[in-house]
């Protein structure tokens, strides 16, 4: 539209069109009812305006009318609900094999990390036409990752990962805003998502890699912190073998089973005593205060890489997790998630 008077945000993701269509439907339906109410009120105020020869007719009511204007709106509301729920379910269930990006929010900037090791601040480069899954966490307060052009936002919490996914459909630069009030520079915690043609994205990626991949840096941290002394692939390990762990169910010593997703891995590093794998002793020390969120993401990334045939490829997102966005499935969830 007009560049200094936008009346509609750009449509840049596979979700945008669906959301806009639903939005227009809602505008039409609610607009119609609003105009109807306005029109009837104005009409009655005019037609029955005070006049010397007019006498009000006392009407008690009409059950038929009450039923009508209860059931019809209710029916329309149910259509709105179902349509919205359908769009929503698509919007919160990341497809398998989505490209991973990790996001750490902090007062007052966004730190983005590609698995290939490229780090960005406040800007996210992605290829067009690919599914992208963001795994996000905050270092301090609650933030929210909002890209209006993608019609989606997700709160970024301290203490556990949340996820969001999108499929960009148009190249360009799109606003990225923090949408959960987070203190002084909340309105400064903005940036952009840069959607590029796939070949340009690859070029950008390789031009910016100067450290190893995220998984490689995680492998280094894994060794530096001494994790490998207990978590070994031979039978001598005092801790569970982590190869092939990601995405699989894990039996705990209290009889329950949890899914080894990102949050499970993070919790196990920070609060190992809360979930003990069946057959192992509760002897793992906590790394709470020793690793920061970025190191945790690199460790998680490394452990995920132990679950594919080839290193460097994104691990499959755990199946059937999405209904509990980024959370383990077991009833006794690790770091106290409230549903």
């Amino acid at each position, binding site marked *: 539209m007009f560049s200094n008077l936008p009346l509609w945000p750009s449509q840049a993701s596979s979700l945008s069109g669906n959301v806009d269509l639903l939005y227009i439907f809602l505008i039409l339906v609610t607009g119609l009812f609003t105009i109807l109410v306005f029109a009837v009120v104005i009409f009655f105020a005019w037609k029955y305006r005070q006049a010397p020869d007019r006498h009000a007719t006392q009407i008690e009511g009409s059950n038929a009318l009450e039923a009508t204007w209860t059931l019809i709106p209710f029916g329309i509301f149910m259509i709105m609900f179902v349509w919205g729920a359908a769009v929503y379910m698509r919007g919160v269930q990341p497809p398998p094999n989505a490209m991973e990006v990790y996001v750490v929010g902090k007062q007052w900037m966004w730190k983005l990390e590609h698995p290939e090791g490229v780090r960005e601040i406040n800007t996210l480069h992605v290829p067009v036409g690919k599914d992208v899954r963001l795994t996000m966490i905050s270092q301090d307060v609650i933030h929210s990752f909002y890209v209006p052009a993608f019609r989606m936002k997700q709160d970024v919490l301290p203490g556990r990962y949340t996820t969001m996914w999108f499929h960009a459909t148009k190249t360009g630069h799109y606003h990225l805003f923090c949408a959960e009030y987070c203190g002084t520079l909340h309105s400064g915690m903005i940036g952009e998502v840069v959607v590029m043609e796939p070949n340009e994205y690859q070029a950008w990626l390789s031009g910016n890699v100067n450290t190893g991949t995220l998984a490689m840096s995680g492998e280094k941290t894994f060794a530096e912190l001494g994790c490998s002394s207990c978590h070994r692939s031979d039978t001598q390990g005092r801790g569970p073998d982590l190869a092939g762990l990601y995405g699989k169910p894990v039996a705990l010593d209290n009889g329950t089973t949890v899914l080894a997703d990102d949050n499970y891995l993070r919790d196990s590093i920070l609060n190992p005593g*809360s979930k003990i794998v069946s057959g192992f002793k*509760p002897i793992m020390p906590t790394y*709470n205060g020793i690793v920061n969120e970025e190191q945790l993401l690199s460790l998680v990334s490394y452990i995920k890489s132990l679950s594919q045939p080839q290193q460097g490829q994104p691990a499959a997102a755990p199946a059937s997790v999405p209904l509990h966005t980024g959370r383990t499935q077991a009833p*006794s969830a*690790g770091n*106290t998630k409230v549903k």
Partner: protein
Amino acid sequence: MSASTTEAVAQHSLQHHFSTMEQQRESTTLGMWIFLVTEIMFFGGLFTAYLVYRLAHPDVWEYASRHEMEFWLGTINTTILLCSSLTVALSVHAIQLGHRKLCAILLFITVLMGCGFLVVKGFEYHKHYVDGSVPGPWWHMHVERPDGSTMPAPNTYQLFFYLYFVMTGLHALHVTIGIVLLAIIGLWAWQGKYTAEYHNPVHISGLYWHFVDLVWIFLFPLLYLIAGK
């Protein structure tokens, strides 16, 4: 007290905006019940938080309840409060029959029992302080591992104790308010303010005390009896 005197006391106690004593009595009773509902909602927030975190950390809750809660002190306190509810109910019964002094004495006994409850609670709090289970700057709790060694308690134990102190602390505050309330009502009963015809303040104060007791009946098993003994 003679019949005419008790009637005079009753009429004198009718507030100007009520038409009859019955209306006044029903209104004040309903008012107290509604107030108690607000108290349920007030404590309810804490019980909700307790529920959420216990479901998330059942092992912590079980360990803390088994090893850190004093089962016998809790049981004594439960007994004290249950008996105090009995004495308060008896005091209402006494004034219904016009026995002013008996009513007052029973209220004073209730007050003493309430004080006893607080004393026991004080001992418990002190022990927790010494053991290092008070969250925040005074925290230095240790837990025993299955193999017998001890280690500093993980931070999630602070969640349990935070809820323990806030819930029992809020309850103790209500016990204190109840003690003051019953002491005043007891004093007025002794002075002849209430009769068989007019004693609703005794009744509704008793309701408050029963509520305070009931909250403890929930707190006791939830905090002290999680682990089988």
